[in-house]
Structures are given as structure tokens and as C-alpha cells.
């Protein structure tokens, strides 16, 4: 392995809390997954909730746009403790990339409250005792996220924070081109707002990653994506990272890589 590959592998394992601990099995039934999830993420020291498979996918996408000269910045919408964006910045720094920024978009106040009539599953999840009392709607303050960047030596002028609800911050964000957009806002409206306000900035050859596309029990994320793709006439194939996370490349080229399966 090269020193760059070694660094990025170590960074991934550190951010996911998997240097010394096994990550929760995201395909396990909820009864087993939740105790492991709370222990590993909520009460643990992991900086990201992404399993290693999704970090590998993120690395693949970022390295692909670097290697292919796809113009633009990187963004994640919905960052929790910031681990995926720390990793984005780490990849850019490891490859000495100085002309791209990493955008960190979040309310930093937790998930927005969904409309109960329009999105009953999301409203139920949002108001559940586990979400309100234990997960705190995944709220992590912006200062804590900045501390995480700083702890890894990656807080600099190439990290740009967008604090607020996506519907307010994204329409006027000063981004000209994007190369990778990773959407992890969990709910329908967060996903829709990110797609509507960012997709037209995505360069051909760039990637859209949808963290919760395969999640059906508590979110309408998939519906937001399917509607947007239909509205925009997007027929680039969707590829599966794991049971929940999917992505596509805005191009006619094939992003098929080892471990990524085309959507049936």
C-alpha cells in the first residue's frame, strides 16, 4: 500500500470507530441493530455513522472525480458529527488538491419536524421516545463538528460550513460546480431540497450519493429521489452500495466498480 492509501485506510477506520471495535450490522433486524447502533455511535466515539462500505464508496467517488478531472467541490447535506466530510477533506489533502472545497451543510440542530399528514412515517419516527430522548434528533452543534475537523488536522479554509435548514441555505449557496454530492438528510423534504438546489451544479462525471434510498420503514427519501429523477428525465443507472445506500454518476460512462451492483 502507498502512504496515501495507508493514511486514508487509517482515517476511515478511525472515523468509523472500527480500529478496535466491530461496526453494527446495518442489515440486522432493528431489535439487534439498535442496541449496537446506540453503543457504537450515539454513546461511542465514532465520528460518522457510515459503515465502512459507504466510506469505501465515498472514497471511490472522490478519487474518481480527482482522477478524471471532474470539476467541482464536494458536499454532504446532513453531517451529524461530520465524519464523512472530514474524510472528504482528508482525501483532498492526501492528494494535494487545493482547488476544491468541502461543504458541510446541516442545521446543526437536528432533523426538521416532518409534516404529520404528508409524511406520517417520518413524523412517527421523529416524535418517537428513542428519537427524542436518546438520539436527540441527531443534533450535533457546529462547534463540535469543527472540533472534529481540527482533531484530525483538517480544519482549514477549504472547509465551508452551511448552517441552517436546507430550504434556506442551499438555494443561494455560492457553489458554482459540484463533483460529489452526498445526501444524508434522512427525510423526504431534506432530500428533495438538496436535489432541487444542487443537482444542476453537478458536473458531468460527478456523483450523487443517497444515504437512505433503500430505507423504507421510517423515511420517504426514496420517493423524493424517484420523483426528482422522473421530473428531470434522469436515467443514469442507480448503483447499490449496501442495502440502504445508493448512488449514480451524472454521465453516460459506467461507474460500475467492484462491489457496486446495478439496481435491479
Amino acid at each position, binding site marked *: 500500500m502507498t502512504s496515501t492509501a495507508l493514511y486514508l485506510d487509517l482515517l476511515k477506520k478511525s472515523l468509523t470507530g472500527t480500529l478496535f471495535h466491530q461496526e453494527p450490522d446495518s442489515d440486522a433486524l432493528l431489535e439487534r441493530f439498535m442496541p449496537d447502533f*446506540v453503543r457504537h455511535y450515539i454513546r461511542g466515539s465514532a465520528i460518522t455513522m457510515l459503515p465502512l462500505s459507504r466510506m469505501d464508496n465515498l472514497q471511490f467517488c472522490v478519487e474518481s472525480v480527482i482522477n478524471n478531472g471532474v470539476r467541482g467541490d464536494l458536499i454532504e447535506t446532513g453531517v451529524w458529527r461530520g465524519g464523512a466530510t472530514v474524510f472528504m477533506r482528508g482525501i483532498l489533502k492526501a492528494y494535494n488538491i487545493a482547488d476544491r472545497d468541502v461543504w458541510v451543510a446541516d442545521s446543526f440542530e437536528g432533523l426538521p419536524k416532518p409534516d404529520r399528514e404528508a409524511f406520517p412515517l417520518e413524523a412517527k419516527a421523529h416524535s418517537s421516545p*428513542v428519537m427524542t430522548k436518546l438520539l436527540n434528533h441527531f443534533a450535533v452543534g457546529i462547534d463540535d463538528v469543527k472540533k472534529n475537523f481540527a482533531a484530525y488536522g483538517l480544519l482549514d479554509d477549504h472547509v465551508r460550513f452551511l448552517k441552517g435548514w436546507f430550504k434556506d441555505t442551499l438555494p443561494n449557496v455560492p457553489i458554482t460546480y459540484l463533483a460529489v454530492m452526498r445526501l444524508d438528510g434522512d427525510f423526504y423534504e431534506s432530500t428533495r431540497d438538496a436535489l432541487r438546489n444542487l443537482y444542476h451544479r453537478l458536473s458531468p462525471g460527478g456523483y450523487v450519493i443517497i444515504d437512505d434510498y433503500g430505507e423504507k420503514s421510517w423515511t420517504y427519501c426514496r420517493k423524493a429521489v424517484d420523483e426528482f429523477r422522473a421530473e428531470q428525465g434522469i436515467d443514469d443507472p442507480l448503483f447499490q452500495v449496501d442495502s440502504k445506500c445508493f448512488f449514480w454518476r451524472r454521465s453516460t460512462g459506467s461507474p460500475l466498480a467492484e462491489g457496486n451492483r446495478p439496481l435491479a
Partner: protein
Amino acid sequence: MDELRDEVQKVFRAVFDDDQLVLVDNMTADDVPGWDSLGHLNLVIALEKHFGIRFATAEISSLKEEGQNTGSLLALIKSKTSM
């Protein structure tokens, strides 16, 4: 079993924030204030940590099924420990 019961009782008291809670075999979730979905999750996490054990998925869901009580829970933990 008494030693095990005492240890499980300690966990119950901590999770449900009740220093007076006394664990008896026929107790169910309905008998313990706070034993809702969140309480159940916290209980599973605390028991696994305290005893260094791991429940299977079916065991976790079965703990709240009809006919199950703290006696069943004690028997399950006993089967996973040397106590």
C-alpha cells in the same frame, strides 16, 4: 440465582431510575414505569454491558412478548453466564 437476581436488579434500578425497585419473577413491562420502547432498548444495552453478554435478535424481541416476564429474563441471562 440470588446473586444473579441482585445483579439484574441493580441494572433495573439504574435503567429505570428507581432505587426501590424489587425484581420478582412475575413482573412484566407493564409493572415497571418507564419500560417502554426506549426503556427496553436501554435495558438491553445495560444488561449486555453489565454481564458481558449478547442477546440474539429473537431473544430481544421475545422479552416483551405475552407470557414473558422478568423470570424468563433471569433464566435467559443465567443461560448466558456462569452465575
